[in-house]
């Protein structure tokens, strides 16, 4: 079996790639994708430990996370739409104030 | 139960007045505020406390009801008055009523809110002077600030916002320092106290049960807590160099509020110093005798010098309050019956006299719309009664015998000169006493310029005698001051009774 360290390393890598995307891009859609990556990094961990402990709780949790990710995307897309409507762009750096 | 009744009635009165229409608010507030006056006088007549409430004495009208459990400490509703608390309660009620009456002439918008806040403040002040549980006391202590903030910030002069914020932030930061100091002591006591009851805490501290805390030795803890609490209360007193909020607050506050500020709120600081620092950590206090006496002397002389340089009558009285409160600190550190008792008496005397001064400045301001020494001249010609009372009040401030101020000051001087806490105390006393010359200097100068000489004031309105409802509070205060000056034993006996147990230090350092 693959030692759990490698799963973790993979998850960390995926997470950091997502993070990298968030830090270096200002496009809201890219943001959303990057967030998905980070979320899935967490999922990898859940599944990895599920196997590590021989318990399905982690995997079930992973399923839920995916469902919530779907919800998050729904909301995220909605937010992006509003952003676009207000700023005529999906550049997140434009939304600086609380009012606009 | 009478203390609870008094506080509750005052709170209720404040709510009633808040809801009353503006037109009747002033009269209603005055009428309702007579209730606490009657109550406090009744308490005085039935007063039977012995000893100091914090050192095993038996306070009058005591109630202890368990209230909350908090982190292993029991919080009690614990109130009661001893010989130190009662005079201050009487002072508070009388001065509040007079301040409310004196506000009739000067407050002409949002009256119901103004008088409601005044009564709200009075209720909290009564709480401060009667609470014997730290939690209860602290709630009241902080709650006093709120109405004061609004009273200055809403009804004040042109720079009211600056003054109100300065007052609030300054005193609140000070409260924080005090709170930290006290809590450190409380934790240092460990298991030896299980409640926030002040007598219990004072007893434990005086019995030397303070242990180390987080590796800080008991001695250091004591010193640090003492300094923190002293700083916290020193701002409230105020003591030089923490006094600068006071003149600003006084100048901006409307006169009735100044009366309460100088008359009662400053006494909270000295009262708390006496109750906390000087009662709970007497030996630490004597170790700091020289710096404290020095601060007192500097407050007296420096405050008086500053008053000499002012042009605004209210600023003059404000700075002289700094000066007078310096005497109180000197009396407290003396640790003699006359010193500490005199300091307590001086709190009452100064409350009445500074109240009288601010009130008469207010009466003149209502007529002339100026408080500047240079703008007025010959006021005695147009307002003979007010001027006469102002002169009497000023002489009271200068410590004229047979008025309350002299009694307080003389007791302090006598007590401080005899003090054995440090060999240099007679020298400090003599230095502080020089304040009586400077105080005479600036008050006489101000009187000469404003009251005497030919009448000269550029106004387009008639300047005439003040109405009766403005002079009556002045007269009542003046009579009270003289009565207390002729017969200081009215209060001084019970004060000494409450102060005497403090002079036996117990074994704080053992």
């Amino acid at each position, binding site marked *: *079996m693959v*030692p*759990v*360290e490698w799963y*973790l*390393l993979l998850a*960390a*890598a995926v*997470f*950091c*790639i997502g*993070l*990298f995307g968030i*830090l*270096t*891009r*200002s*496009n809201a*859609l*890219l943001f959303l994708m990057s967030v998905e990556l980070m979320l899935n990094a967490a999922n990898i961990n859940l599944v990895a430990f599920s*196997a*590590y*402990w*021989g*318990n*399905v*709780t982690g*995997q*079930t949790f992973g*399923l*839920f996370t995916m*469902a*919530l990710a*779907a*919800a*998050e995307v*729904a*909301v995220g*897309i*909605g*937010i992006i*739409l*509003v952003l*676009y*409507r*207000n700023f*005529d*762009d*999906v*550049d997140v750096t434009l939304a600086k104030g609380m009012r*606009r | 139960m009478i203390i609870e009744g008094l506080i509750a009635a005052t709170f209720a009165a404040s709510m009633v007045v808040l809801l009353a229409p503006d037109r009747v608010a002033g009269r209603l507030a005055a009428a309702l505020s007579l209730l606490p006056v009657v109550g406090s006088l009744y308490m005085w007549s039935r007063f039977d406390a012995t000893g100091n409430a914090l050192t095993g004495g038996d306070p009058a009208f005591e109630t202890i009801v368990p209230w909350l459990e908090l982190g292993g400490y029991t919080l009690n509703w614990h109130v009661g008055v001893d010989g130190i608390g009662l005079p201050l309660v009487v002072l508070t009620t009388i001065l509040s009523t007079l301040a409310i009456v004196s506000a009739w002439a000067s407050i002409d918008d949002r009256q119901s809110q103004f008088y409601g806040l005044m009564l709200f403040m009075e209720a909290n002040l009564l709480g401060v002077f009667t609470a014997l549980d730290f939690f209860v006391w602290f709630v009241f202590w902080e709650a006093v600030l709120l109405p004061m903030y609004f009273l200055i910030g809403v009804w004040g002069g042109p720079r009211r916002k600056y003054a109100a914020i300065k007052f609030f932030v300054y005193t609140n930061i000070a409260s924080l320092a005090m709170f930290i100091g006290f809590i450190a002591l409380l934790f240092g006591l460990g298991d030896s106290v299980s409640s926030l009851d002040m007598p219990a805490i004072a007893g434990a501290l005086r019995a030397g049960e303070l242990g180390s805390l987080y590796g800080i030795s008991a001695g250091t803890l004591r010193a640090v807590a003492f300094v923190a609490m002293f700083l916290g209360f020193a701002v409230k007193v105020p003591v030089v160099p923490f006094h600068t909020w006071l003149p600003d607050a006084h100048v901006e506050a409307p006169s009735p509020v100044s009366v309460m500020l100088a008359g009662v709120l400053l006494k909270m600081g000295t009262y708390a110093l006496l109750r906390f620092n000087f009662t709970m950590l007497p030996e630490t206090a004597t170790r700091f005798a020289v710096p404290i006496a020095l601060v007192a002397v500097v407050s007296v002389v420096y405050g008086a010098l500053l008053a000499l340089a002012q042009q605004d009558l209210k600023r003059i009285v404000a700075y002289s309050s700094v000066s007078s409160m310096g005497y109180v600190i000197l009396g407290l550190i003396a640790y003699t019956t006359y010193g500490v008792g005199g300091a307590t008496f001086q709190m009452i005397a100064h409350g009445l006299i500074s109240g009288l001064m601010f009130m008469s400045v207010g009466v003149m301001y209502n007529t002339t719309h100026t408080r500047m020494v240079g703008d007025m001249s010959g006021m005695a010609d147009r307002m003979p009664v007010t001027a006469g009372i102002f002169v009497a009040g000023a002489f009271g401030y200068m410590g004229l015998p047979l008025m309350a101020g002299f009694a307080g000051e003389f007791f302090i001087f006598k007590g401080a000169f005899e003090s054995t806490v440090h060999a240099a105390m007679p020298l400090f006393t003599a230095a502080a006493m020089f304040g009586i010359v400077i105080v005479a200097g600036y008050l006489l100068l101000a009187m000469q310029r404003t009251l005497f000489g030919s009448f000269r004031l550029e106004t387009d309105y008639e300047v005439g005698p003040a109405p009766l409802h403005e002079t009556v509070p002045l007269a009542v205060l003046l009579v009270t001051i003289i009565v207390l000056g002729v017969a200081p034993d009215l209060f001084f006996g019970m004060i000494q009774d409450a102060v005497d147990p403090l002079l036996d230090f117990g074994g704080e350092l053992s």
Partner: protein
Amino acid sequence: MTTRPELNTTGSLLPGLAAVALFVVMAVAILRASFGDPQGFAADAGITASIGYAMFDLEMGSVPGESFLAALIVVAVALDAALDGSLLLAKREEDGSPVALLADGGRRVRDRLRDGEASSDTEGGADADADSGGDA
């Protein structure tokens, strides 16, 4: 200005260093840790079935796990709420009544913004108020 998403590469890559640094730290921490051997599943275990039983709180799975019935319902509700929420966000209300989703590629908004920039000084306050109300 874009009318459809493009890859914006103008952003600085510098903040990305933070992510790299985080990865390094995490990697070192992970590699330094010792986890021991994983237990793994039995070769014949019905993992998928077990997950299904766990979700509905049925004690019939062969692999141990906790019950997730409540969580399932909560997630179901959350998904529904998210769906409705996204619709709500995507719509915009004007004078209290929902307006159809924009299909003009944001042109109308863009025009209004331009107008606002150009004539906000001269235009009356009532209009501006109505606009901001619409935006919120």
